[in-house]
């Protein structure tokens, strides 16, 4: 495929690996965080970690939207399906996210698990590919309430905004959105402000690989603050393995030269301004939430969006008077620490044994972009265990 295959060329990858090796100073370590789950996926899938010199370390960041959704938010969705009898539409990846009482949307759909005595035992939960599918379901079932469980960073927010605007235009009476959209810059700030990075230095951080598709929407400008204020280089990279390697090379160079700038490796799709049309649509429909709980990061101020009062009837939280109740994660699960870059999947005692992609205990094992699932699925454990192999 054009614009895909060329960016996965194995020979060029070897050359880039040599370029990185030639660039690094042997006597220092480099730690870079790839913020986005798509990069985590690419790094694991193509074994980019294996191609890097031993003193260049990649840390997974909290950029997988499935991984950062806390149990309490999943519970809201499950209760809507079970107790209120709504048709709950959602992207496929959210179906297996663990919720309270060993439930997930998938289990609620099948009617298994401990769900108590209230409401029905089987939820009408439907996987959709796009918000337009959710709108269609609402149009086809005028007698039922249809709720779209919206998750994701800045890439999925514009489609949700368009769906709400469309529902408004059509005066769709039975459609609403349970909004969980979160913001990339807020999460990066949170990581940079975390005690592990600021005080203890337990998470050394020399720079960031900026997300690919999020940046097509928000542009490269929001990252300038991190470069200026925190003196951290940011290189925005495309999703293909060569993009990631090139970005790592650019980060190493910045570190070596003592620069902290925003550079754009993904110039074929990202501009400084981003997609202004998408930004306008989003700000018409959404406003900042004062605070939002992230799995692993806790409450993060102004890190998520809510639906503006003008579209209140499409806001499932208002429509059903929902109250968010935080629920702690499974005790054994290290997702919280993994999402903050403090721990690695291998540090979790139940990684790959009790917790697998088929039966995830924590959210990082759910989507293929989650740190635990990526490492489980592609068997690249070298950078974690140091045992040098695909164990």
């Amino acid at each position, binding site marked *: 495929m*054009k614009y895909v295959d060329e960016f996965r060329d194995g020979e060029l990858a*070897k050359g*880039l690996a040599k*370029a990185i090796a030639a660039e690094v100073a042997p006597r220092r370590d480099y730690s870079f965080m790839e913020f986005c789950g*798509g990069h985590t996926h690419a790094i694991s899938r193509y074994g980019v970690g294996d191609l890097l010199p031993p003193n260049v370390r990649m840390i997974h960041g909290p950029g997988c939207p499935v991984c950062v959704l806390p149990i309490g938010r999943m519970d809201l969705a499950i209760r809507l399906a079970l107790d209120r009898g709504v048709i709950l539409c959602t992207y496929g990846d959210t179906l297996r996210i663990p919720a309270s009482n060993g439930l997930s949307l998938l289990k609620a759909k099948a009617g298994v698990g401990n769900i108590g005595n209230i409401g029905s035992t089987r939820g009408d939960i439907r996987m959709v590919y796009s918000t337009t599918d959710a709108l269609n379901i609402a149009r086809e079932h005028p007698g039922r309430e249809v709720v779209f469980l919206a998750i*994701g960073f800045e890439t999925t927010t514009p489609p949700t905004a368009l769906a709400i605007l469309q529902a408004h235009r059509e005066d769709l009476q039975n459609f609403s959105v349970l909004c969980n959209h979160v913001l990339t810059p807020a999460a990066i700030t949170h990581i940079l402000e975390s005690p592990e990075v600021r005080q203890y230095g337990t998470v050394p951080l020399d720079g960031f690989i900026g997300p690919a598709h999020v940046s*097509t929407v928000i542009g490269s400008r929001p990252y300038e603050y991190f470069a200026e204020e925190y003196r951290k280089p940011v290189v925005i990279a495309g999703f293909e393995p060569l993009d990631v390697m090139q970005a790592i090379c650019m980060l190493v160079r910045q570190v070596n030269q003592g620069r902290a700038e925003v550079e754009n490796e993904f110039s*074929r799709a990202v501009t400084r301004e981003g997609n202004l049309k998408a930004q306008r649509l989003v700000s018409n429909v959404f406003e900042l939430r004062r605070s939002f709980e992230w799995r692993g990061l806790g409450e993060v101020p102004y890190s998520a969006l809510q639906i503006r009062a003008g579209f209140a009837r499409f806001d499932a939280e208002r429509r059903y008077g929902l109250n968010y109740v935080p629920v702690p994660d499974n005790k054994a699960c290290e997702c919280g620490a993994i999402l903050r870059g403090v721990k690695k999947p291998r540090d979790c005692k139940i990684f790959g044994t009790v917790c697998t992609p088929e039966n995830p205990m924590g959210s990082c094992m759910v989507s293929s972009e989650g740190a635990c699932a990526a490492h489980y699925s592609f068997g690249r454990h070298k950078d974690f265990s140091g045992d040098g192999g695909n164990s």
Partner: protein
Amino acid sequence: MCLALPARVVELMGNDLGVIDLGGVRKEVSLALLDDVAVGDYVIIHVGYALAKLDPEEAAKTLALFAEMAQAGA
């Protein structure tokens, strides 16, 4: 779910809809987030929406840079 791919626009259907070709598979997507999409453009598709247009000149520059870096490293 963050995975998204560049695809070629093969047909404009009006109403902000278009058909893309993704390695031989055709699919209807929304173009409502972009302005001035033309047949033959490459766009990045995510959850059924075109998020951004690909700039072929920039893509060529990036590939040339890879080749240059790889050569320098070798």
